[in-house]
């Protein structure tokens, strides 16, 4: 079979795919491979690239200064992920508990902001949080006359911006398994005497882990590589990996180090995605088990 003549369908399929795959290869695979290669070169004296092999750039990633920024990014991204997942799950749960005909409407409006411009959604928070912003106005209206604390350019502002931008996706990801949940499972759990909390913790939550994982991975990955939100809402005071990569390419002119940082970012992303795949597999196993129990 291995040496069989290529079937006409297969040939036609290959021809149809060829232009797109060529485009992706030339403008994604090759450039990304180039960045990987770049990470092993040395920075030239005048900012160019010196073509001698080195592992220095990867060593520098673990330098306390930069490792600190990585940890800081992970902490900010982690906090944003936690808040987004808890809020998004609650919202998805509430949507899935709404009348059937209203659910698509709620879902549509929950996701709509996600499709508007990212910069604009971030800018909206500058409008809210600045010294003369709505929140300050509200405080004044309630009779507060003192100096208002600066809310913009804080870590809290960065986290709020990240949560705001990625929450719709978490709602979407969590809604999918929640809406497919068999209500009989929860009923059975209650009939067997489990409290609402136990039912949620032991039945509903484990079955919806894939959605939570997908949402969490999305928020974490996009947050940790973000450079727009820290730049605009953190006022440049909160460096994250994305800002570091940006600086190496556009201001410090150390492309090899920037490339190494980008590769570290990809490595973190792959690690997170693999963890998610593992969790999803285990959850699928559990779901099959639960289904077997229910059927048997």
């Amino acid at each position, binding site marked *: 079979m291995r040496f069989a003549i290529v079937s006409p369908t297969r040939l036609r399929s290959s021809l149809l795919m060829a232009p797109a795959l060529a*485009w992706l290869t030339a403008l994604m695979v090759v450039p990304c491979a180039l960045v990987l290669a770049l990470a092993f070169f040395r920075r030239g004296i005048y900012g160019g690239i010196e073509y001698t092999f080195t592992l220095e750039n990867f060593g520098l990633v673990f330098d306390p200064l930069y490792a600190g920024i990585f940890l800081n990014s992970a902490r900010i991204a982690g906090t944003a992920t936690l808040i987004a997942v808890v809020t998004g799950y609650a919202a998805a749960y*509430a949507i899935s508990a709404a009348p059937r005909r209203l659910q698509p409407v709620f879902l549509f409006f929950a996701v709509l902001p996600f499709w508007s411009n990212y910069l604009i959604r971030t800018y909206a928070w500058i409008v809210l949080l600045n010294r*003369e912003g709505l929140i300050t106005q509200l405080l004044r209206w309630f009779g507060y006359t003192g100096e208002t604390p600066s809310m913009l350019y804080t870590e809290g502002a960065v986290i709020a911006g990240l949560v705001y931008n990625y929450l719709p996706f978490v709602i979407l990801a969590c809604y999918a398994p929640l809406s497919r949940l068999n209500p009989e499972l929860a009923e059975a759990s209650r009939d067997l005497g489990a409290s609402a909390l136990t039912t949620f913790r032991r039945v509903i939550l484990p079955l919806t882990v894939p959605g939570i994982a997908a949402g969490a991975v999305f928020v974490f990955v996009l947050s940790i590589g973000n450079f727009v939100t820290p730049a605009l809402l953190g006022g440049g005071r909160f460096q994250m990996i994305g800002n570091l990569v940006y600086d190496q390419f556009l201001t410090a002119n150390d492309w090899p180090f920037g490339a190494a940082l980008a590769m570290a970012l990809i490595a973190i992303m792959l690690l997170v995605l693999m963890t998610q795949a593992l969790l999803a597999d285990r959850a699928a196993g559990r779901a099959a088990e639960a289904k077997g129990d229910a059927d048997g």
Partner: protein
Amino acid sequence: MNSSPARTLGMRTILVLVFAFLYIPIAVLVALSFNAGGLPTAWSGFSLKWYASLAGNAAILQAALNTLIVALVSTAIATLLGTLLAIGVEMRRQYGKGLEALIFAPMIIPDIVLAIALLSFFSMLNLTMGLHTIILAHVVFNLAFVCSVVRARLKSFDWSIVEASADLGASAITTFRRVTLPVILPAVIAGALLAFTLSVDEFIIAFFTAGAGRASTTLPMQIYAMIRFGITPEINALATIVMAVSVTALTLSQRLNRGVIGQ
């Protein structure tokens, strides 16, 4: 599910709070674009003057034109390539994980990574960067999104009707035009609208692949520069217009896709 009044109230409270969180920032932004006063936050009467001042701002008009060129051209190329790719993938009974990963990659790769990769690539080729390099870059992720929308539609496609058409003597092109295309057309248009919106809104990759100079500034780049300079009601007005365009395109796309599912 049990629906005690307390539980219903709890669910409603969650929905109200979440929708307030999602929409209040946007509502404030839009409301202040109609604010007469120069201060971007304190309300002092209704006015359209910030929209008028946008119309007289040559830099913004140029950026809007650039954005339109990039979005239209990259959407056209991506729609063609993405649709062909979707058909090619779906007509195979089996395909490798590598192919799946390659098609999926543009949607999950961090923008900043693709941006620096393309910047390195273009400068290594000594390519003068401008609108054309932004278009080359935008097609990468646009075609992946078009492909995924069209593939979703093809999942329920009955390939035997294509064989039937061929058996009845129709050429491959006639079969495509009369059989395959009518089925996937709503998804193709939905994918194109999605691609158009993504391209209009895309900032990071455009920022890195636009090259030096202001000639190839796109609207998001212009907005970013304006935000860094400070908040002005002009940004609010511009933001309102951009959001209105995105929301319209996406609502349309959503409708078409719903039509597909409803069939």
